[in-house]
């Protein structure tokens, strides 16, 4: 088993990156690897509760975050600094996440076998 860490860094709807990262996380979970899913920079916007993208012709792709636990993805982090910069708190988020500091992120990255930032 390897440790695969994903850094979700882009906002949810302006580009396809958020969905691309989520699909990689789910595929890794299907292969029963150790997955870390970290939301940072504009990626923390992906976690926000209440997305309603019908008006922009998009699917609510981030609704699948709710299914992460079913897939066995349990190590979900948000970089505290990124939330703070955007005036976001846990109360704004649609799933519970562990807040992590820069130092914790650094350690997580260093201890992973493969790190993918999308």
């Amino acid at each position, binding site marked *: 088993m390897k440790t695969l860490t994903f850094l979700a860094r882009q906002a949810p*709807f302006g580009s396809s990156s958020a969905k691309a990262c989520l699909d990689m996380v789910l595929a890794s979970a299907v292969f029963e690897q150790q997955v870390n899913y970290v939301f940072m920079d*504009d990626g923390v916007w992906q976690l926000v509760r209440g*997305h309603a993208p019908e*008006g922009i012709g998009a699917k609510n792709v981030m609704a699948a975050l709710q299914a992460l636990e079913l897939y066995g993805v349990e190590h979900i982090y948000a970089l505290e600094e990124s939330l703070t910069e955007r*005036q976001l708190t846990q109360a704004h988020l649609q799933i519970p996440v562990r807040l992590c500091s820069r130092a914790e992120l650094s350690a997580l990255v260093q201890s992973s076998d493969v790190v993918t930032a999308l």
Partner: protein
Amino acid sequence: MSTLHIVSTSPFDSNALLSALKTASQDDAILLIQNGVYAAIEAPHMSVMMALAPSGLRMYALAEDVDARALHGLTQHITKIGYSDFVTLVCEHHNSVSWN
């Protein structure tokens, strides 16, 4: 002769908004669309950036993009408008610049 500045990228990861604000004249307007709407939140980082705008500059954010992203508590200086108002803004201004 006034210009509509359309900003479509996140102010946290692009200098598009900054360039638009510094280039805008006071009778111009700014319209935030796509990930540009994140500039409409109340946050210290955004206030600092918005302070670079010429005084009196009108600011709008596209409702469809704001709602998609579930943004709440927009700063009061920014008016939420729909696509029909977007078209009206384009017509009311002499030209437009799209900052990506």
